[in-house]
């Protein structure tokens, strides 16, 4: 056995545990989701009936699915845009500005991220309560009773109430990621820019943002994945999809169909659409945000 062959064997041996685990826990279940989407099956019996693309045909005409899809897209867009903007803004301030209590703010912003989503649901339920809730009572305190709302009871508002909770939860995590990137930009760049008269905004736009770009692109994928996953958990614990299904997101609808409605195959068809949607959306975002990587 020559040296190269031995080396290759060693590499394969080292990689095999991870590859095997990946195949068992990622590739196989994904394949199963695709396979089961072609069957009619309740989840337990041995009678799995092959129905081809029937589940997808039903999905095409299912208005509840469209509503949950719309809600999910709204969540992804608003949560991503707002969280991104706010996290970059605070990351920039905390790194670039001389501010008292920087570490204190850093911890405060990060705390929501270490809380379980069930705790967050509990906190926001208390905030949104109609009579004793923090939000409505604060509005009363500043004489804005006319802005009182049923934050979780009004079908037009409930999805935005969820968005606020998700943004609050996500800001700290992304802020810390952006802070680490901003902190690694050499100070001399900013000094040189200041010497030629560039103000803070120009410094941010022409130095910070281009050098942060790669990090920012990566987090876009994180935004999509985490919003899809966390919105399911938040809806499950906070609103139960209500009132009357108005806060359903597509993973919640998938879970409901696969289990509560005993249509496992149909649930998996929704799973396939969710999988393809998140995959394609991430790919499109990666493509349109592609820039030459700037190095320093």
């Amino acid at each position, binding site marked *: 056995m020559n040296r190269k062959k031995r080396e290759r064997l060693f590499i394969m041996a080292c990689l095999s545990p991870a590859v095997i685990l990946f195949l068992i826990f990622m590739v196989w279940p994904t394949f199963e989701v695709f396979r089961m989407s072609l069957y*009619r099956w*309740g*989840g*337990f*019996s041995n*009678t799995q009936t092959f129905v081809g693309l029937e*589940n997808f045909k*039903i*999905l095409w005409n*299912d208005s*509840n*699915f469209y509503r949950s899809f719309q809600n999910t897209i709204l969540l992804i867009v608003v949560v991503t845009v707002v969280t991104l903007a706010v996290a970059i803004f605070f990351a920039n301030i905390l790194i670039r500005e001389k501010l008292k209590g920087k570490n204190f703010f850093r911890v405060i912003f990060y705390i929501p991220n270490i809380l379980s989503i069930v705790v967050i*649901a*509990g906190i926001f*339920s208390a905030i*949104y*309560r*109609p*009579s004793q809730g923090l939000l409505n009572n604060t509005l009363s305190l500043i004489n804005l009773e006319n802005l009182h709302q*049923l*934050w*979780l*009871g*009004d*079908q037009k508002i409930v999805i935005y109430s969820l968005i606020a909770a998700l943004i609050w939860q996500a800001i700290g995590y992304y802020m810390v990621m952006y802070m680490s990137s901003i902190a690694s930009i050499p100070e001399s760049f900013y000094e040189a820019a200041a010497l030629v008269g560039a103000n803070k905004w120009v410094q941010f736009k022409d130095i910070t943002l281009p050098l942060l770009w790669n990090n920012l692109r990566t987090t876009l994928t994180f935004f999509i994945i985490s919003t899809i996953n966390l919105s399911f958990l938040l809806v*499950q*614990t*906070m*609103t*139960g999809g*209500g*009132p*009357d*299904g108005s806060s359903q997101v597509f993973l919640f609808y998938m879970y409901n*169909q696969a*289990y*509560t*409605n*005993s*249509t496992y*195959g*149909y649930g998996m068809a929704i799973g396939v659409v969710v999988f393809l949607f998140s995959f394609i959306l991430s790919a499109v975002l990666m493509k349109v945000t592609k820039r030459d990587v700037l190095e320093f």
Partner: protein
Amino acid sequence: MTKEKLMKFGLASFMTLSLAACGTTDDAEDTDTSSEETTEETDTSSDEAVTLNVAALTSGYGEEMWNEIETAYESANENVDIELTLAANLEEVIRPNMQAGDYPDVVLLSVSREEALTETLIKEDGLENLTDVLDMNVYGEDVKVSEKLLPGFTDTMVTNPYGNDETYLMPMFYSPTGLFYNSGLFEEKGWEAPTTWDEMMALGETAMEDDKYLFTYPTSGYLDTLVGSMLYASGGSDFFESAMSYEEGAWASDEATKVFETIGDLSQYAHPDTTANANPNDFTQNQQLLLDNETLFMPNGTWIVGEMEEAPRADGFEWDMMAVPAFEDDADRYAFTFFEQIWVPSEAQNIDAAKEFVTYMYADEAVDIFAESNAIQPVEGSTDLLTGQNEKFYAIYDEGVLPAMGGFAATDPVPGVSISDELYGKVDSVMSGDVSVEEWQNSVIEASDQLRPALQ
């Protein structure tokens, strides 16, 4: 192979063999003991030692009664070793094992739960037929199960889900449901509990003048017993059955329209916070509205007293329950009887032993154990074991109120269609004015039309 490796291999093999030998000895001893037990115990129908896996939902009645049942049954039937699985989220605990082929032998888990595991098994023909259990003797007693059960409990669409005389789910812990209110407040204000819907709406007006609302509900799912009683009151038991089995025209009939419209009228008197609190996190806030005298009535079951035991309440608060009002003077009034169910999966390993255990659920000894935790079995004489407030609640049927029971007929699963989402879930939209009563009724008719061809 080096000498060292050989030694390690030898040692490992020796240890494996010794462990295997130990295992064999233990197994042999176990078998000996059980065969002794088998010869000693001759009065049981199954003469082999079995381990019976019993899975039960931990509800408001607590876990203790199940542990006592385990001890009592094991000492009554020495052939059986019970392994209990108790959990409040029982579906999440047993579902993965069941999907892997490892089924419990007996399961206490009702229909109409969020996860709908029981419904899934009904739709998938995954339950053992328990009709013969009715003709079996109650374990340790010389009386048949059917003779001991209260009449009517095994003639419902819940116990016989395929619309025939075959029983697949046996009734357990029952409790009357109705509209709960604070009789202390009624006494203080000099109000009478309304007997008709007209009186109910008139009381709604009176309450409004007093800054109170007539009605709330914890979540829309709690409306099942209210709607059920109203359907019975509107068209009788035949009409209820036809609506529950999606008969053509049933949901569009005058009787059904009367129910939809009455709930629509009720929405005008509903507490405005209801829909905002009607979710898994805040439903107790709606129940609290009653304790705070902000709302007069709420559909619920007798468990509410224990559930809200620690909650603060208005002075002089006293729980009371009334039947759902009648549509006309002197017409029939109903109170829906909620009961849990116990069943045996058809994939269970010990079906005979499981059925025998199910008969024991109605034995005097078991009934007493359950009653100590306020879980009342639907057997003759069980209401004599009631004490305090429960005695008052269960006496509702003694006052001329009729019992109502049943649920939707089983269908093959239909993707994207849920009758309970349309019938109960949509009430949130009716209350908030997002959907008109007519649109609500039409959506129920549409769902019923879609489910009819899938009837089993």
